[in-house]
């Protein structure tokens, strides 16, 4: 039996998963990473993406937006919003993309001459779109 670790996925509204797992792929802000048992303690922020959890019974996938992950004794992921992949449908996805789009537009208006926040918002939006292409949903409007 492979080594396992405690994994918790919680969103502000509920706890989505709490189980022993073999490995978890985390969409970190600086790049994807896979956490396995005995990983060095680490805290990272998340970008919108897919969280893949590998348990003894199989793999589960969640769509997460921002938040952070803490790897210590076990792994806890605190996601701002987390939706099981199976529950993610076109409508929910479009709402998320629309929201990112809205933020992008607003930031662009507020910060006309500062590239920083605008780039961040653009990145958020493109991350969202990337999530869609990964799970086979496409936004109804072209990106950017």
């Amino acid at each position, binding site marked *: 039996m492979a080594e396992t670790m405690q994994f*918790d996925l*919680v*969103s*502000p*509204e*509920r*706890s989505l998963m709490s189980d022993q797992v073999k490995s978890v792929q985390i969409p*970190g*802000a*600086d790049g994807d990473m896979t956490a396995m048992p005995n990983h*060095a*303690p*680490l*805290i*990272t*922020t998340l970008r919108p993406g897919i969280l893949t959890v590998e348990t003894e019974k199989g793999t589960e996938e969640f769509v997460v937006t*921002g*938040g*952070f992950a*803490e790897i*210590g004794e076990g792994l*806890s992921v*605190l996601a*701002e*919003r987390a939706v099981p992949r199976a529950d993610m449908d076109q409508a929910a996805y479009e709402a998320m993309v629309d929201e990112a789009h809205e933020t992008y537009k607003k930031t662009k208006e507020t910060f006309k001459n500062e590239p920083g926040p605008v780039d961040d918002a653009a990145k958020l939006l493109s991350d969202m779109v990337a999530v869609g292409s990964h799970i086979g949903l496409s936004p109804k409007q072209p990106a950017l």
Partner: protein
Amino acid sequence: MPNLKDLKNRISSVKSTRKITKAMQMVAAAKLRRAQDAAEMARPYTERFNAVMGSLAASVGDSDTAPKLLRGTGKEDVHLLVVMTAERGLCGGFNANIAKLAKQKAADLVGQGKTVKVLTVGKKGRDAMKRDYGDHFVGHIDLTDVKRIGYADAQGIAKDVLARFDAEEFDVATIFYAEFVNVVSQTPKAQQIIPAAFDAPEEEGGSSTLYDYEPDEESILADLLPRGVATQIFAALLENGASEQGARMSAMDNATRNAGDMIDQLTIEYNRSRQAVITNELIEIISGAEAL
């Protein structure tokens, strides 16, 4: 003496009042369970979040580069009081207690020569604060249409507060809400959210883990602090939700009991006057018969 018909009307009106309060009590009981569950579900997130923030905040410390949300603006002249209450009344002293605490705090601050600004969440709080602090109002957030409080609502409030902070409208923000102790007791509480105050993590035998941070500590903090504000507001909203239902439940329970007592009294009075009327009529008939 009130006549019989009046009494009868009173009794039936009190009876229908009792029906209403009874129904409200049962509705509140059902909602309370849901609100409590919601608060329960949110707890792990808040706890973990605060733990991580606590250790992060401790490691970044008071350095000059620490984000303003953690360090403060360096002064505390302008205070923002976020008063969170219910949208509906008929819940005992719930709204009044929160407003009272907020008013006390506001009076203290004004006494110290600070500027006070008030942001209200929930209609009842606004009504209660209006008379004394109406000209300190800077905004109001309406949650009348919200059936079930979601994280998005808290984010909305947090966004509003943070926008004001970025515009340097205030230095210190405090939220007022009622903590749910149990069904019969809810304590109004004040909690400072900006600059962020986290409980220092407990050092367990000096074995506190040294974390790697990705990206660096300060970017993580800058990213997480605004979320922290939303998380705290969300937790407070949920506590408030549970407290409101608890307060309403016990208030309505009392009202139902009082209505029952009143009905008993009125019924006795009704029967007494009915008997008096009958006795009177009998006397009239008998004395009439005797006169013949």
